């Protein structure tokens, strides 16, 4: 457990400390009406000097003991089910980040008073109100560490705070102090007795509170909301009424796009609806964050907050990448594309409704293939890694000038999707993968528009990722095909398998590239078909070129009916029945013409991998091969590989996630 005292530097040398002494007054009442005026002595030994604030539970006063000790006196009004046990447990807790409780007293009227440490200068709530857009990264982290350390201490002693919010957090000359622990029972009493609740307390309330469950995870949830507010200045769930905010806590996904990693991941985990999925303790949450570095003196300037507000939002958002950003992975497109392709594959692997034995076979065979072809790809890999290394070095030299421009551009485009959609999509897809969405949903216009409005750089990144993914899937599919065909009796030669793999890869790329440009737009089908046919002709020619250079012969399968020899036109076929370039082009051209390939790569398709689509593709391929006398079953296998590869590799927007966020 962290025992260090975490310090938040005071408001700076040039900024006076107690300028206007905003106390932590409640937002709901304009005219603060305090029961006890200055000078009253409801408790023996203390003289009230003035009221400090009001909350949902009662009033707080600033008082001085007869000897001169400053204290805060909190009046807890008499309730029918007064429970002193909660606060009694907290009486003897001591921690540098906890507001000290000195005593609990009862006055002659029967009211309960809590005598506690007085801290002037306002609460974290006042600081956040004054500084729009959140606090600078180091300061926010220092605050958070102080609060989380206090909460960890409370949890360690079996106490759940239950009412964590900026109004209960103070800074005592740089030391974070958390107050109001142990008082939550009173809060719940007063809520039930019908006092008006300020909407403020609801913003930090975990969803399971509605079921009456009060565990440590409650505080973890509140810490997540607090961290988000410290960094961005806003809570993730806002609303016009208490009910609206509560509904959002229960059902809505928080919008964490303003946060950078690793904070976004930490907040997301803390804000899980299911308490069992959050961090188990505040200590775990601290461990997941970078430690607060030395806060520079005068770092916590309330004045700078208003300067931000005066100059407008872009100032705050531009500064964010340089302060809050602690990206473990540099935002490098090629690497990101590779990683995204990897993520996509993994998601596709999970989403594809392939039986487990089949998956196992694919994995094992894939491993074999990789090892078998080691001679070819290892030198290639080495060369490409070297080239990539050079590229990274050059990029790092050129980069710093570019980054600021990018950030400003990103800030200036509030409508543009943030550059993290692939990862976010995968997260969403992973969540939803359990609940399959079988009904076809009409694509939302906004999503389609967003697809059209995608910046070209992002499009390119996705495309490269898909192409890499398609290549890998095509290879795997070819291995599968080979296995299947060998099961049927015909053994496949390695060069035939290689041809199959290469043509599948080429074919899938030939589908992905135009589909990427046609994303989101309905387009003219005949025009697209024509374009695809032309592409298909090119693919066919290339396929023949590969077959010729690799000296691959594609004998027709034994079980397929052989066409009568006299029917084969000489320009298309060689004397022994081998298809020539024209035959290849004709077959592939027709294949690409007939099927609407771009639909298989459409992000808005109803499911990622559709076996129906695969079946249709197969049947059409078989028919086309039959028409052009292309030796079976090669065209069928190629078409099948291309279809599977394209569907698995092309990005896919889960309609459920779309419906939720829309």
């Amino acid at each position: 457990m962290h025992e260090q005292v975490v310090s938040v530097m005071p408001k700076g040398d040039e900024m006076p400390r107690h300028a206007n002494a905003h106390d932590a007054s409640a937002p709901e009442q304009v005219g603060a009406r305090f029961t006890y005026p200055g000078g009253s002595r409801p408790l023996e030994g203390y003289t009230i000097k003035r009221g400090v604030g009001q909350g949902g539970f009662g009033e707080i006063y600033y008082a001085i003991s007869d000897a001169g000790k400053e204290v805060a006196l909190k009046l807890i009004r008499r309730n029918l089910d007064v429970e002193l046990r909660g606060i009694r447990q907290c009486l003897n807790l001591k921690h540098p980040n906890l507001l000290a409780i000195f005593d609990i007293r009862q006055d002659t009227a029967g009211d309960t008073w809590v005598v506690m440490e007085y801290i002037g200068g306002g609460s974290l709530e006042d600081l956040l109100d004054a500084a729009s857009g959140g606090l600078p990264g180091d300061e926010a982290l220092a605050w958070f560490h102080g609060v989380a350390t206090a909460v960890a201490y409370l949890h360690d002693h079996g106490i759940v705070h239950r009412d964590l919010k900026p109004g209960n957090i103070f800074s005592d000359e740089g030391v974070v102090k958390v107050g109001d622990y142990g008082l939550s029972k009173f809060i719940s009493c007063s809520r039930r007795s019908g006092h008006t609740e300020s909407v403020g307390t609801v913003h930090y309330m975990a969803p399971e509170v509605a079921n009456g469950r009060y565990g440590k995870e409650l505080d973890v949830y509140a810490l997540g909301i607090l961290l988000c507010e410290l960094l961005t200045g806003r809570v993730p769930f806002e609303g016009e009424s208490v009910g609206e905010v509560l509904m959002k806590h229960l059902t809505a996904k928080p919008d964490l796009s303003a946060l950078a990693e690793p904070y976004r991941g930490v907040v997301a985990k803390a804000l899980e609806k299911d308490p069992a999925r959050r961090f188990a303790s505040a200590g775990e949450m601290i461990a997941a964050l970078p430690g607060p570095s030395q806060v520079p003196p005068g770092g916590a300037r309330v004045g700078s907050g208003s300067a931000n507000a005066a100059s407008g939002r872009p100032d705050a958002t531009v500064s964010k990448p340089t302060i809050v950003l602690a990206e473990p992975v540099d935002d490098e497109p090629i690497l990101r594309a590779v990683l995204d392709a990897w993520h996509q594959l993994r998601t596709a692997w999970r989403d594809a409704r392939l039986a487990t034995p089949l998956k196992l076979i694919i994995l094992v065979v894939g491993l074999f293939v990789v090892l078998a072809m080691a001679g070819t790809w290892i030198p290639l890999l080495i060369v490409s890694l070297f080239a990539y290394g050079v590229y990274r070095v050059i990029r790092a030299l050129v980069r710093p000038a570019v980054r600021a421009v990018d950030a400003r551009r990103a800030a200036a485009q509030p409508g543009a999707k943030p550059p993290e959609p692939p990862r976010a999509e995968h997260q969403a897809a992973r969540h939803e993968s359990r609940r399959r969405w079988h009904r076809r949903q009409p694509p939302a216009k906004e999503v389609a528009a967003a697809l059209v409005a995608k910046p070209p750089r992002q499009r390119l990144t996705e495309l490269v990722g898909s192409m890499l993914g398609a290549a890998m899937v095509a290879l795997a599919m070819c291995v599968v095909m080979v296995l299947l065909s060998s099961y049927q009796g015909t053994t496949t030669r390695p060069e035939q398998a290689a041809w199959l793999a290469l043509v599948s890869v080429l074919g899938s790329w030939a589908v992905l590239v135009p589909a990427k440009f046609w994303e989101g737009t309905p387009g003219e089908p005949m025009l697209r078909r024509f374009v695809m046919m032309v592409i298909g002709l090119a693919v066919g020619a290339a396929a023949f070129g590969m077959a010729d250079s690799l000296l691959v012969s594609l004998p027709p399968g034994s079980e397929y009916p052989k066409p009568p020899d006299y029917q084969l036109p000489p320009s298309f076929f060689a004397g022994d029945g081998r298809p020539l370039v024209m035959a290849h082009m004709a077959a592939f051209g027709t294949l690409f013409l007939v099927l609407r390939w771009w639909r298989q790569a459409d992000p808005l398709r109803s499911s990622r991998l559709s076996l129906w689509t695969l079946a249709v593709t197969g049947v059409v391929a078989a028919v086309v091969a039959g028409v052009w006398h292309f030796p079976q079953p090669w065209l069928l296998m190629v078409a099948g590989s291309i279809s599977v590869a394209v569907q698995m590799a092309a990005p896919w927007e889960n309609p459920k996630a779309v419906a939720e966020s829309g």
Partner: protein
Amino acid sequence: MNERGQRESNRRMLWVDAVGGYLVCLADQVTLGQPIHGRGVDVPILGDLSGRHARIVRDGESYLLEAIRDARVDGRSVERFAPLREGSRIELGSAVKLVFRRPHPLSATARLEFASRHRTQPTADAVLLMADSCILGPNARNHVVCRRWPQDVLLFREGDAMYCRTQGEFRIDGHTHHDCGPVGPNCRIEGEGFSMNLESM
């Protein structure tokens, strides 16, 4: 009335509910220094200072800092006197730092705030060097900014007496007044959306 009694009656504590506590000095000259009993310092500061470290003198509309011990204003060492303007930074001794403010253009009343972590004895959120008037309310140029008050409240002096003025009805020690009413050294002022206590020291 002995000298100490007279000096003490020149100071008040103004306790403003939900805003803060302020040390109000009514005299034209105030001494700043350590709170040594019997010396009668006007602004006792818990800091590494002498018993009488410096004096702030009000001459009509302008203010001067008279350095008895080492003092600096805006970084420059003070020989004997230095003028004080809005935003002047006063350093007493090695560590005590104050900021001098004259927020309201129509009033000679000034406010002293701590820029270092020192405090007065008794603790006050700021020191008000009251000339003729002291304005409290939501306006940012007031001597005491009370963000949530619906309107400004004025405390002003005429000779030895002090009065409170604000729009509408308000109560002083339970007695209702309209627009204006006299205020004693110890009293409670309550109105629509505001309340405060004056305590003589």
